[in-house]
């Protein structure tokens, strides 16, 4: 967004330099050229090479997902004899109880993203707009918990949940959702802090309580932030491997675990073609979501909060 503005300014601004004839620079000065920002051949070469490198894993997994087992064992070059095996995708969703795992993934991702977004917004609002004893200390703790390695808490949490009998239930995800996420709390707090005080004062004058101010004034204003939070949490949960692997039995697990260890032949080794097809189906929702909401992430959406 701001680049278009920048480049527009650059294009309009007339060249101001080197107009005075008396200026005799000691060393040769480069003329200021407003179009210097335009990319040259070197930039294009770098972009094309880098893009090719980033695309290779995608292209290769598509090739493998459409290959026959014979092609796979024949090495990389036999994959180029393109004979698309579309039934690999059909087999990927029928060989394992795909619909069941997908439902579990969807259910957990929706639960966690809705709960986390609501909680994080509520807590972020408290830290942005309310006052209470110890607020600053609590906020420092939130910032500090962003630095606590999540695995250092996940394994002990797993042991605790195992003793409480919460393993192989979805309760851990509900609790994680209710607790909110420090990073999102921080982002919501930054977002709410930037909203003018007049809005809040006007609502207070009208006799609104804090709940109504939060629910009817602040939340409707923070739609982009809510959307960001929902998307981030949804994809985190959809992509999470370790928590379902530790906390859920195989027949009750998510698509992440099932895709990873579900496609086995009778000897117990992975069927590469089906695994590739399954992986492609599994990542499709995430990629679609991000492509449709690109503008949020390509702008200053997620990063604006972390600015120093």
């Amino acid at each position, binding site marked *: *967004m*701001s680049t278009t503005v*920048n480049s527009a300014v650059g294009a309009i*601004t007339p060249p*101001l330099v080197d107009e005075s004839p008396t200026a005799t620079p000691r060393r040769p000065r*480069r003329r*200021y050229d407003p179009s210097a920002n335009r*990319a040259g051949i070197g930039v294009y070469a*770098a*972009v094309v090479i880098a893009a090719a490198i*980033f695309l*290779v894993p995608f292209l*290769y*997994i598509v090739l493998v997902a459409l290959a026959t087992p014979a092609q796979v064992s024949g*090495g*990389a070059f036999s994959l180029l004899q393109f004979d698309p095996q579309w039934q690999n995708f059909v087999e990927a969703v029928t060989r394992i109880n795909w619909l069941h795992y997908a439902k579990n993934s969807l259910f957990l991702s929706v639960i966690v993203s809705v709960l986390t977004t609501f*909680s994080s917004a509520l*807590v972020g609002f*408290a*830290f942005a707009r*309310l*006052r*209470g004893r110890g*607020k*600053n200390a*609590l*906020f420092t*703790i*939130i910032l500090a918990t962003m*630095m606590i*390695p*999540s695995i*250092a808490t996940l*394994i*002990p949490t797993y*042991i*605790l949940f195992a003793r409480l009998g919460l393993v192989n239930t979805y309760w851990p995800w509900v609790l994680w959702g*209710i*607790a*909110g996420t420090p990073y999102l709390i921080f982002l919501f707090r930054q977002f709410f802090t930037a909203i003018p*005080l007049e809005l809040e*004062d006007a609502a207070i004058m009208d006799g609104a309580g*804090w709940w109504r101010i*939060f629910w009817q004034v602040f939340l409707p204003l923070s739609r982009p932030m809510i959307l960001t939070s929902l998307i981030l949490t949804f994809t985190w949960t959809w*992509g999470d*491997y370790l928590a379902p692997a530790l906390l859920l039995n195989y027949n009750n697990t998510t698509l992440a*675990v099932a895709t*990873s*260890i579900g496609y086995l032949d009778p000897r117990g080794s992975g069927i*590469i073609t089906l*695994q590739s097809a399954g992986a492609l189906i*599994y990542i499709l929702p*995430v*990629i679609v979501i*991000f492509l449709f909401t690109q503008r949020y992430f390509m*702008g*200053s959406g997620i*990063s604006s909060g972390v*600015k*120093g």
Partner: protein
Amino acid sequence: MTSRSTATSVAVAGSDARGRGWRRYRSSTFYLFASPWIFGFVLLTIVPIGFALGTSFTNYDGQSPIWRFVGLRNYIEIFTSDPEIWASLVRTLAYVVIAVPLSVGGGLFLAVLVNRRIRARGVVRAIFFVPSVVPIVAVAIMWRLIFNRDAGLLNGILEFFGGPDQTTWLADPYAFYALIVMTLWGLGGGMIVILASLQDVPVELEEAAKIDGASSWRVFRSITVPMISPILYFQVITGIIASLQVLVQPMLLAETNNLSTASNIPQSTTLYMVQVYKEFFLYNRFGYGTAMLWVFFVFVLALTLILQRLSKRFVFYQVAVDQD
């Protein structure tokens, strides 16, 4: 900053005028609204970490009800008679030292590239960014394909150019580098954050410098990088902490990725957290594993504090940091 604090003090004066009852209402609402996080912090952070601390003084094995306190024995063993831990720690540090600068540097490089006025900029940005949001399970499957011994792309290309054929990239000693390559594929996430901060650098500053005759490289080095240094610093910090605790990537990149067989992870990718995971779920040494977690925890905490101190030397903050 100044305008904000005056606004706050006005608000304080305003609410003071509303009286003590109002302030009490606001304060109790603060705790009510913050309670989900407070509850979560106590139940899901303090309790597990405290429980881990307690367990670390025992020989608990995860199943049997018979366990006893062993005092500091676990910690003594970690520091005196477990060379595997130190080897895994050295590998982890090597991983951090290689992966973090390459990730941040590569992210900066790509951000500068896609910040230029190039054709199909949106598509190019998406190509760099999307890998960073692909779930790790699929990322690992993709890179296992590339590094696969028989059907892998890398061996295919090497064979085509007459190089050595049939290298087992996912075994020692190459697995470590495969892991780093896989990590670097996801640097587009950092690119996006850096890109956003690049776009916030005041264009007048750069243009003024160019008018004064500074070369593009000089402008980049002396103006752009200092202006975005808080973001770069943030990337380095979060990158270090994330890289120190890498566990899932080596597990999923290992050829057999059955959960119960953590023993299949090659030694060169047995980073610290993998070692911890093995102690828990391969050897059932929960007491010892939690002690390792606590050592790690203190280590990360100390490192964060040191980096925080260091940052004041070289990070340029445009405005005072609003940490409240």
